């Protein structure tokens, strides 16, 4: 606390802003077909849960959900479920559930039935307090997703992003925002009259690092989400930017401008000692850690245009290896969670910027988006989804896609939003 940079801290009323709107534009061609029966218990709560769960599952692009009106409430006494009826409707799975609400608690119990195998495959309970309906729904969605797909769900993860609004005199206000993975439940972490860029999560989801220009130059700050305590990471007078947390939470990679040029350093958080990783006349920035923490990738201009390089941290004096070769602008790369590939920003021959994927095993890149100015891709912790920034009619907003082919958009309800950062798993 003693090193805390002195800033005036107010506790803000939470949830005062509008929320992002989820708009699902496209889904997969061979989805799981499921029916979700209205949950037993309070009808309003059941409807709320249903809407959130439906959106969570649709956003993955891997589900087709039977129209609610066609599903009547079902009371099932164990194996009385008539599988053949659901099979006739073309369903793969049926989900039933119940809600038990008291003044202080909500319990959600849900069951998943495999229509083809004719058996119950999951029986789960999630419980919380009444204002946690969104979280209860996200936990339920993740349970459903995990049981059916075999992959860990990301409905209960969170997003960070930057919001910029302009007042009537065109003066900007910048906010660092936190929201559920569906853009709902927005909360303000920081409000400033100076730009905020490059938000990055600590791996445990308790802290964020970001660049703030509040002192007149770029500086990296770490902020504790629960307490709002924040501090500048280094007392140096130089510009500092592009923070990225190591997977074990012990290090931050950073870009320092000590001698005027952008170079990458790794800082040990415990004692703030710095190790210089690049030493190049050209720009080196946008570092990001491999999932195991033994490599970093970064953007360097050393070849004459921005390209992606990799450094093996296990080696003594590692030499940066160039790993992008297609085109004249490849930047802001991050690894997929199993390190099977990288996601990055790629400038196409027509001069437009897109999000691209390159699998390690392949010798070509896959361009995955088609707007004009796509940027800041962030990969979900299960590796199945990417969220990024787009510009539509001069307004920045967030968009996403699943690797299975679904697309969605999260336009801001107010102003512009950009630079999304997906948290780790939080449950």
């Amino acid at each position, binding site marked *: 606390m003693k090193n805390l940079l002195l800033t005036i801290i107010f506790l803000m009323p939470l949830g005062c802003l509008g929320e992002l709107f989820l708009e699902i534009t496209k889904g997969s061609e061979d989805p799981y077909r499921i029916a979700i029966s209205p949950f037993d218990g309070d009808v309003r709560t059941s409807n709320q849960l249903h809407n959130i769960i439906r959106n969570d599952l649709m956003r993955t692009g891997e589900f087709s959900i039977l129209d609610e009106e066609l599903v009547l409430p079902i009371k099932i006494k164990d194996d009385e479920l008539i599988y053949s009826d659901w099979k006739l409707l073309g369903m793969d799975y049926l989900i039933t559930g119940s809600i038990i609400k008291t003044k202080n608690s909500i319990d959600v119990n849900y069951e998943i039935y495999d229509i083809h195998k004719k058996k119950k495959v999951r029986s789960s*309970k*999630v419980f919380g307090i009444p204002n946690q309906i969104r979280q209860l729904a996200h936990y339920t969605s993740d349970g459903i997703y995990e049981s059916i797909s075999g992959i860990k769900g990301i409905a209960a993860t969170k997003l960070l992003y930057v919001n910029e609004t302009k007042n009537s005199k065109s003066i900007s206000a910048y906010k660092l925002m936190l929201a559920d993975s569906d853009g709902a439940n927005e909360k303000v972490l920081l409000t400033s009259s100076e730009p905020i860029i*490059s938000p990055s999560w600590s791996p445990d989801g308790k802290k964020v690092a970001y660049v703030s220009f509040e002192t007149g130059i770029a500086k990296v700050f770490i902020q504790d989400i*629960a307490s709002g305590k924040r501090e500048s990471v280094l007392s140096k007078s130089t510009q500092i*930017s592009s923070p990225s947390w190591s997977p074990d939470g012990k290090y931050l990679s950073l870009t320092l401008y000590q001698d005027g040029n952008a170079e990458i350093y790794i800082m040990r958080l415990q004692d703030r000692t710095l190790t210089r990783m690049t030493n190049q006349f050209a720009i080196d*920035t946008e570092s990001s850690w491999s999932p195991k923490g033994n490599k970093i990738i970064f953007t360097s201009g050393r070849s004459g245009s921005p390209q992606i390089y990799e450094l093996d941290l296990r080696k003594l004096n590692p030499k940066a290896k160039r790993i992008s070769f297609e085109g004249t*602008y490849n930047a802001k790369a991050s690894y997929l969670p199993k390190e099977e590939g990288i996601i990055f920003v790629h400038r196409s021959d027509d001069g437009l910027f897109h999000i691209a994927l390159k699998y390690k095993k392949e010798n070509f890149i896959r361009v995955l988006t088609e707007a004009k100015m796509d940027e800041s891709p962030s990969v979900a912790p299960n590796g199945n989804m990417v969220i990024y920034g787009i510009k539509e009619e001069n307004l920045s907003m967030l968009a996403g896609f699943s690797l299975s082919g679904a697309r969605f958009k999260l336009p801001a309800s107010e102003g512009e939003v950009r630079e999304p950062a997906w948290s780790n798993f939080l449950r």
Partner: protein
Amino acid sequence: MDEKNTMKKFTNSFLTISTLLLFSACSSMQVTEESVADQSVAGVSLATKSTATQAVLANAVVYFEYDQFNLTSKSIQVLKGVTELMRNNSKITISLEGHADERGTREYNLALGQRRSESVANYLIANGIKRNRLITKSYGEERPLSLGSNNLAWSKNRRVEIK
């Protein structure tokens, strides 16, 4: 288990989740029980700084080509005037604030803006101005002069503001 007490304990803490994974005896059915946790969040609002600064002595802007940080002949004309002013007012320090257009990634543009700022500084130093009278910094693409996504707006935004 006293569920309500457990829940209260969990409500304000993050990531304190009890997950029970049980497998029923006769089938491969998954049985789980989880308490939901959501983090508490404290918002921070930065007070606006006072913007009282020294009177502007040098006030000039030089522009750059796309992706470039080398000085054009037009920029050099502008910088000759700045050099003159610096020589005649030996006490002033100036800030060289680099900017980029919106194309490309934000952090790379921050670094590019810095390179532009350094280009201007290097010219002034080569013409006898002391380094300690120059402050170089970058705002990247965060402070566009001209809004809009077209060549004209972009050309106005790739700049170093000398003030």
